[in-house]
């Protein structure tokens, strides 16, 4: 991984007495290549490497007996700093029901994550309601109903002939009547550049005023993660991110890009297809994964 590469690059400098700017430049190239290979966005990589370089030409690295180790430590520390702390708390409303809306590109894992969150919240003593707001994708409503059935969680649906805005509104009324204290809105996958569908999300937002809007992002997303996250954040305002399919072997650099460009915490990690495969996101684990 990167740690090894950096150790090797800078190991040959031991006993040379002093690490030069050129040596550091070569080490920074290694960092850049490693982060790009891990799918971190190019602009995020440049900013990151600039910060690391600043610290790498500092006294504690240049005068160290093991400069390679020092640089690795700097990279690791900067990654942890950038990713932020562990925060898997959803913004809960003081007056129930709390409304949580999940949004994101097609196929990212929203419907599956809504079911997982329902199970997670019930284990915490909550009374969640899953809401089928995807009226477009064939059998999307049925998909959520099947998941709800498997987990013995209630699913609110008004079929596919009603607008998602009306479904969301109907769900909040139903939740109040039935004493459900968290509403989880599953929305249809959409492109950030589809004005009509982004307007639909804005409309749902202004109608039911979610306390938590989470962007669901596939861990294998490449350079485009920044465009998507930035656009969804600017248009809707995000409170958090869920990174899915972390049980794969993608390095997950998209996580860094999303955090860097939106500042939003990644709150949960999808670790599999089963309903219990949801964990609080651990930034330090992702940092190690990106370093490889």
């Amino acid at each position, binding site marked *: 991984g990167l740690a090894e590469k950096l150790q090797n690059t800078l190991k040959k400098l031991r006993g040379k007495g002093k690490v030069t700017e050129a040596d550091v430049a070569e080490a920074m190239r290694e960092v*850049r*290549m490693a982060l*790009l*290979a*891990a*799918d971190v966005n*190019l602009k995020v990589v440049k900013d990151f490497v600039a910060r690391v370089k600043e610290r790498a030409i500092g006294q504690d690295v240049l005068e160290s007996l093991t400069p390679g180790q020092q640089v690795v430590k700097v990279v690791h520390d900067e990654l942890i700093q950038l990713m932020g702390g562990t925060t898997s708390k959803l913004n809960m409303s003081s007056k129930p029901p709390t409304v949580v809306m999940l949004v994101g*590109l*097609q*196929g*990212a*894992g929203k419907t599956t994550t809504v079911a997982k969150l329902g199970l997670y919240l019930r284990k915490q003593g909550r009374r969640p309601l899953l809401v089928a707001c995807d009226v*477009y*994708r*064939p*059998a*999307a409503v*049925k*998909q959520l*109903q*099947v*998941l709800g059935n*498997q987990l013995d969680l209630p699913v609110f649906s008004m079929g596919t002939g009603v607008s998602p805005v009306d479904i969301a509104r109907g769900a909040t009324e139903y939740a109040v009547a039935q004493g459900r204290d968290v509403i989880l809105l599953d929305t249809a996958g959409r*492109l*950030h*550049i589809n004005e009509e569908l982004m307007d639909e999300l804005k409309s749902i937002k202004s109608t039911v005023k979610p306390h938590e809007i989470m962007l669901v992002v*596939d861990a*294998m*997303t*490449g*350079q*485009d*993660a920044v*465009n*998507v996250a930035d656009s969804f954040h600017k248009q809707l305002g995000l409170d958090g991110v869920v990174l899915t*399919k972390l*049980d*794969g*072997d*993608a*390095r997950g*650099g*998209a996580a860094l890009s999303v955090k860097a460009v939106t500042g939003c915490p990644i709150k949960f990690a999808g670790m599999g*297809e089963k309903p219990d495969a949801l964990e609080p996101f651990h930034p330090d684990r992702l940092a190690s994964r990106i370093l490889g």
Partner: protein
Amino acid sequence: VTGRTKIDDELYDELEEALISADVGAETSIELVERLRRKVKEQKISDPSLLQGLLQEEIAAILGGEAIPVNLGNQPTVILIVGVNGVGKTTTIAKLAHRWKQEGRKVLLAAGDTFRAAAIDQLEIWGQRVGVEVIRHQEGADPSAVAFDAVQAAKSRESDVLIIDTAGRLHNKSHLMNELSKINRVLDRAMPGAPHETLLVLDATTGQNALSQARIFGEAVGLTGLVLTKLDGTAKGGVILAIHSELQTPVKFIGIGEKMDDLRDFDPGEFAKALFG
């Protein structure tokens, strides 16, 4: 990359960064720009406005002059659709079925995803919309049994094409890759030579992990082509360059939307241009 007056390092860096931003990958991007530098030197090119076009030509050439079509010469032609979760396999099958039905062919579908919630329902709805039959078993059935059954059905109905849907699966899950290999063997047993095409569906928003997907799915079942979906978004799918140079797997179709006619033949020239779009 416009409005430049001379060819300098800055211009080459800009081109390299455009490729990286398109998910071509750092190593491949560096290689491509190195080749361009040599070409510029050899051909004594001095006009900076020509460079992007030269790079596009190089990329289109690497991807092969023309698309290699799907071979529909068997009766039935059996096509296996594979890929990781959520990339667009089921929707792509609907698009392919629609296209070939429009061409007057008899198409049959097989609901080989017996695992995910409402996966069979999803394909059945598409089947109804497109106007083709879907062979299915119950949820939780053995997908190999569905595949075998579908081949028998295709033969008895004298279908021209049989397209088999499979559950999304991550390539690092060996038991799931074994399940896929088994489906592959069962198809060959049901009809020697089948599947005649195995298409890996890749999501254009995927980064460098797509290369691992192509390698491992290729090792498990052998691929005859790729389908690159969601190119109607802002992602460029540049990783297919590395897949092509390492594995020679050709992209046969691209997905540009969620409707049944949002399918196009792969055009290397268009693709190369769009990388810089």
